[in-house]
């Protein structure tokens, strides 16, 4: 599994080591060049001093290095060396520190060169061509001054030691810094990513029973705000979905308990007292089974329409014709109950799922036919304008109060929470509304002061709109 903290730690450490190594190397070389430069400056000063102290006494060249500043040229403290050659290449003077040995001659004057000294050490040497000062003016005018070659060399051991020390200090600092960063970076990253870890822990604690939980957004890092907002939105959607499923299961279980109890007690009575088995018992069993089938089918249709799976392709439908046709199924019942129907329906072609629309209209008619008081009037009116088609179904609703209207579309809601002979389960109106919503229509109910209950189904009328 990829860990952001581990990955960041690795990348930051690699970057740090590369930068640290580069910085240390740069510092080392800059310091080395500075040390060598200082060493060479000192060498140049010594060359100038030796050349100015060289005198020509009738062809004999003398260098007076008795001053205490030139102790390093003495044989008892050999750190610096010089040797002077005549134009013919003959060594005319050399320092005591050479002990009679010769210094190597750099090929060009002016720039110090790295040389191997007679004592085996490495050092740096500088060549200077000069004419020594004439003692007591012994040679006359027009006499050419002899040009000598002076080489001054300094032992490089102290320089090498300084460079080694510099390297050691650099390496030690590097190791110390690297160790510190190895310890520090993971901890800093861990602390920096703490809110993410906290978020992970909170998320791990959420299960199907705690979907009401929301991640806190107050005091959260700006980078995590969008993630937490999306997670909270996801939780809200999950909660609604789980609640819907839970309600479905609970409603289903609750509504099936009574028919199951009927079925079970019928069977147990028949087994225990076979002589008491009535002639219509099988019809009873079949009726209970059909009732359970209707409940399950309706609930499944509700669940599917909640997920918008119920709607088929929208095709041109004559809603006026469909409404009149749908009424035929309830006409006999309405006539038996003495209901008078007032029709105001015309032919209007609209795009719809004919099956769903018929189911919606059928549910409205079934309610009117069953619940309108005997001998009362049922009004069915179809209106259409430039953008909408509106179907209104109204009837007198005995015993219904305004508070009940809000519950009409709740699943399994029935006035008095009672079953009515196994025909109504409180699923028809919720189903009709779900179907309407699945098609993009609306279904509402309203109760006026005279207890006239009116259902209003509104759908788009694109043919007119265009």
């Amino acid at each position, binding site marked *: 599994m990829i860990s952001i903290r581990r990955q960041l730690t690795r990348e930051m450490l690699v970057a740090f080591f590369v930068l640290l190594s580069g910085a240390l190397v740069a510092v080392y070389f800059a310091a080395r060049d500075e040390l060598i430069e200082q060493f060479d400056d000192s060498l140049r000063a010594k060359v100038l001093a030796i050349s100015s102290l060289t005198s020509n006494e009738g062809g004999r060249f003398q260098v007076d290095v008795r001053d205490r500043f030139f102790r390093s040229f003495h044989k008892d403290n050999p750190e610096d060396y010089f040797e002077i050659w005549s134009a013919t290449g003959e060594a005319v003077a050399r320092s005591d520190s050479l002990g009679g040995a010769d210094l190597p001659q750099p090929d060009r004057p002016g720039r110090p060169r790295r040389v191997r000294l007679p004592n085996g050490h490495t050092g740096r040497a500088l060549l200077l061509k000069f004419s020594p000062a004439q003692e007591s003016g012994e040679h006359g005018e027009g006499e050419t001054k002899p040009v000598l070659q002076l080489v001054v060399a300094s032992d490089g051991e102290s320089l090498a030691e300084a460079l080694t020390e510099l390297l050691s200090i650099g390496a030690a600092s590097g190791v110390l810094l690297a160790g510190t960063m190895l310890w520090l970076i993971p901890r800093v990253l861990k602390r920096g990513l703490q809110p993410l870890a906290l978020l992970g822990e909170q998320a791990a604690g959420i299960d199907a029973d705690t979907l009401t939980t929301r991640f806190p957004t107050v005091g959260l890092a700006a980078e995590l705000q969008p993630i937490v907002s999306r997670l909270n939105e996801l939780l809200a959607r999950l909660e609604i979905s789980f609640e819907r499923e839970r309600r479905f299961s609970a409603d289903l279980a609750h509504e099936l308990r009574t028919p199951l109890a009927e079925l079970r007690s019928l069977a147990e009575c028949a087994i225990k*007292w076979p002589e008491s088995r009535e002639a219509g018992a099988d019809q009873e069993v079949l009726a209970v089974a059909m009732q359970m089938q209707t409940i399950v089918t309706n609930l499944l249709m509700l669940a599917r329409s909640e997920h918008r799976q119920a709607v088929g392709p929208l095709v041109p439908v004559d809603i006026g014709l469909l409404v009149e046709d749908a009424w035929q199924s309830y006409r006999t019942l309405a006539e038996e109950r003495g209901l008078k129907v007032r029709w105001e329906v015309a032919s209007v072609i609209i795009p719809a799922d004919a099956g769903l629309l018929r189911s919606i209209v059928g549910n409205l008619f079934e309610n009117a036919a069953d619940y309108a008081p005997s001998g009362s009037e049922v009004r069915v009116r179809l209106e259409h304008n430039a953008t909408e088609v509106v179907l209104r179904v109204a009837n007198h609703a005995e015993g219904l109060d305004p508070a009940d209207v809000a519950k009409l579309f709740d699943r399994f809601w029935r006035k008095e929470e009672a079953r009515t002979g196994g025909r109504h389960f409180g699923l028809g109106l919720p189903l009709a509304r779900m179907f309407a919503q699945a098609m993009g229509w609306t279904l509402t109910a309203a109760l006026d002061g005279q207890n006239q209950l009116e259902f209003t189904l509104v759908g788009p009328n694109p043919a007119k709109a265009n």
Partner: protein
Amino acid sequence: MRVLVVEDSARLQRSLGTALRKSGYAVDLAGDGEEGLWLAESHDYDVIILDIMLPKRDGLSVLTTLREHGKTTHVLLLTARDTVPDRVKGLRAGADDYLIKPFDLEELLARVQSLCRRAYGSKQAVIKVGDMELDTLGRRVKRGRYPIDLTAREYLLLEYLARRRGQVVTRAEIEEHIYDGQVDPMSNVVDSAICSVRKKLAVAGDEPLIHTRRGLGYALDQAAAEAPTT
């Protein structure tokens, strides 16, 4: 024992009525809360089986009203509501027992029987009167070593008298507890049943157990406790 069933499902009403009658109970049926409350207040039932979701008046309202009116009849709530809060609400409203649909018929009958026992302050399953033993669980009666073969209604009559052993039980009380609304109140079903039970008990033993208190009713007890008016 007389039981009132208040249940709006006609099929369940029929099944429960059959099962309870076959088990020897007198059964009255009601299809809604109003009718159930009226019956419960008009008669002295041993047990009421009450649904909660009822037309006109819900079961909990019926139960609360009964308790408010001082009715202490044992009530078994028979409902599809299965959550713990529903059960707590039902029991707190004054129910004595709670059974969830769908239910086992045997369990329902056992619970009704248990409530009947509690109605007479007895937890014992076997009632002994002299040399007669009445097993309320097995619904069997024997006298001495001899089993007595009784019809369901006769057994119920004997059990009712046994539960009120030593007390004078009036004909009206017997009619109220043993016979349901289907029996003609002017008939002499009680006297006939008493006579029949006496005859069956006499086959296994000479000592009379059911004694007549003239003008008052009947009492079940040993001969030693018998009053001289017999």
